[in-house]
């Protein structure tokens, strides 16, 4: 066993004591009863919108083989609630808070980022550029390199805190979007959000999701996300936060070998509420087994023969 294992990683200037954090949308204050937030690398509450949102029609989730499709529609209490209740709640934890932001326009992203980043408890921003852009007829910001560039660029002007762009996987070449985010001044990239999907009940002939389509998460998508992490790692120098289908320590290690610096855990917490701690323990066991002193040693260390 290695006496001193170093699990620390850096996302821009943000130091994390370990690489494991929750995925936005799969984490909230209600989990306090089950897990100790101070053991996590970071906390990432659900994406916040400027105004309260009721979310999409039900059913909002359905099960698929090794995964689930969701279309929650960012049910949100709005930024006023976030500032007055959510942010003060997290001040009692030493774990850095990453605020996930969703907005309806580039200006709104910048406006919200400036307000939220102005709070001491917020250590970084994760911009959810994977949500549909109303002005772009439903196109997600993150589907277009130029829009991604303009958006990050504008947010960069309002805050010095680390900006993490959460990329959509629903593009042909995710590396082009990643490069645009890097050139615009992002400090990190979350790779990626859920993959657009659909399921139909063959008996009723109706879609299994009220909104017809939704985003699939879970182990079913992990190989696609690992591929995207690998591609983005080749294309940019930015730290990558892998997100999509991590269920255990081996999955997290796989993403780090592909190029991820940190890993978000989402759906796994639904299956096992303490999944993030199980994953941390399994990473430690892996480090012991392969005599790895610092977890950063494995980032991007996949051997491809190329």
């Amino acid at each position, binding site marked *: 066993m290695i006496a001193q294992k170093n699990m620390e990683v850096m996302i821009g200037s943000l130091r994390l004591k370990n690489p494991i954090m929750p995925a936005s949308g*799969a984490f*909230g204050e*209600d989990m306090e009863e089950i897990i100790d937030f101070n053991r996590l690398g970071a906390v990432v509450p*659900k994406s916040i919108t400027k105004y309260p949102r009721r979310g999409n029609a039900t059913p*909002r*989730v359905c099960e698929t083989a090794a995964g689930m499709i969701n279309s929650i529609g960012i049910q949100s209490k709005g930024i006023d609630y976030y500032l007055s209740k959510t942010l003060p709640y997290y001040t009692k934890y030493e774990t850095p808070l990453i605020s996930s932001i969703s907005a309806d326009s580039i200006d709104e992203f910048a406006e919200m980022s400036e307000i939220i980043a102005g709070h001491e408890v917020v250590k970084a921003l994760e911009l959810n550029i994977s949500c549909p852009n109303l002005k772009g007829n439903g196109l997600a910001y993150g589907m277009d390199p130029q829009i991604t560039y303009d958006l990050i660029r504008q947010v960069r002007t309002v805050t010095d805190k680390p900006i993490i762009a959460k990329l959509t996987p629903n593009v042909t070449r995710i590396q082009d979007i990643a490069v645009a985010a890097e050139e615009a001044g992002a400090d990190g990239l979350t790779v990626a959000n859920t993959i657009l999907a659909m399921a139909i009940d063959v008996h009723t002939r109706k879609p299994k999701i009220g909104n017809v389509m939704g985003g699939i998460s879970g182990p079913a998508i992990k190989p696609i996300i690992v591929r995207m992490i690998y591609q983005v790692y080749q294309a940019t120098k930015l730290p990558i936060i892998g997100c999509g289908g991590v269920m255990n320590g081996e999955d997290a290690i796989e993403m780090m070998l592909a190029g991820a610096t940190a890993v978000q855990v989402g759906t796994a917490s639904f299956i096992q509420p303490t999944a993030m701690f199980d994953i941390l323990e399994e990473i430690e066991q892996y480090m012991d087994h392969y005599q790895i002193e610092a977890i950063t040693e494995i980032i991007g260390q996949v051997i491809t023969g190329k």
Partner: protein
Amino acid sequence: MKAVKLRVLSNTQVSERYWHMVVDASNLRETVKPGQFFHIRCTDEYYPFLRRPFSIYRINKQSQTLEFLYLVKGLGTRRLTQVAPGEQVDVFGPLGKGFTVHESWNPILLLARGVGIATLAALAQEAAEKGIRCVAILSARSQNDLLATETLQGFGADVYKVTDEEGTSDVDHVRSLIEQIMLENEIKAAYVCGSKRLSLLLQEIARERQIPAEIALEEHMGCAMGVCFACVCDLQEEDGVKTVRVCREGPVFPLEKVVIS
């Protein structure tokens, strides 16, 4: 709430579509209330992937066991039937808010359809322990699907049964039955689970009679701990309609507030 593995003591088929599971809850330190539920992992594999919510059917404090009465509906519940006595089930709970029962609310009316009785049976048990008398109307497709009659009678409940096959379960008939029960008993509170049309009916009657009523909602869930916002329902509050989480703010709600669609 916590995730624990509980030993299965028995898991038996009780009718064509229903199964009954008893688990050893001696290592579960938390108090379990009627109306609460557990999120159960039906298999260790990735399909079926999500846990399934199961309401508490009986809480046995002396023997430290919990019972679940469940409808075999899909892959998850079919897998659960394969769990043998001696094996463990991975449960997460107890979750959610349970029923409100005041000792002055005596007697109470229970209105259940299908597996909804599994939820209301635990309430009948608590009512019996508090000396509250229950009158129950059980509705089902067939006689074979009528569950828990003896369990409820064992708690001293008067049980009325209505079925589709006998043509007695339609809303008009159930309304007449409730009105007859109301004439014979001074019902102080009412509870419903398992049917939208019966819930609408009871909502109407409770409003007319101005008695408190509660509903236990059933919903597909993602996390069951309040973070994913998958299971929601609309509540009519004074300042407008609010969308709330069934797993966290419920699954039991004041019937008057729930927007039943």
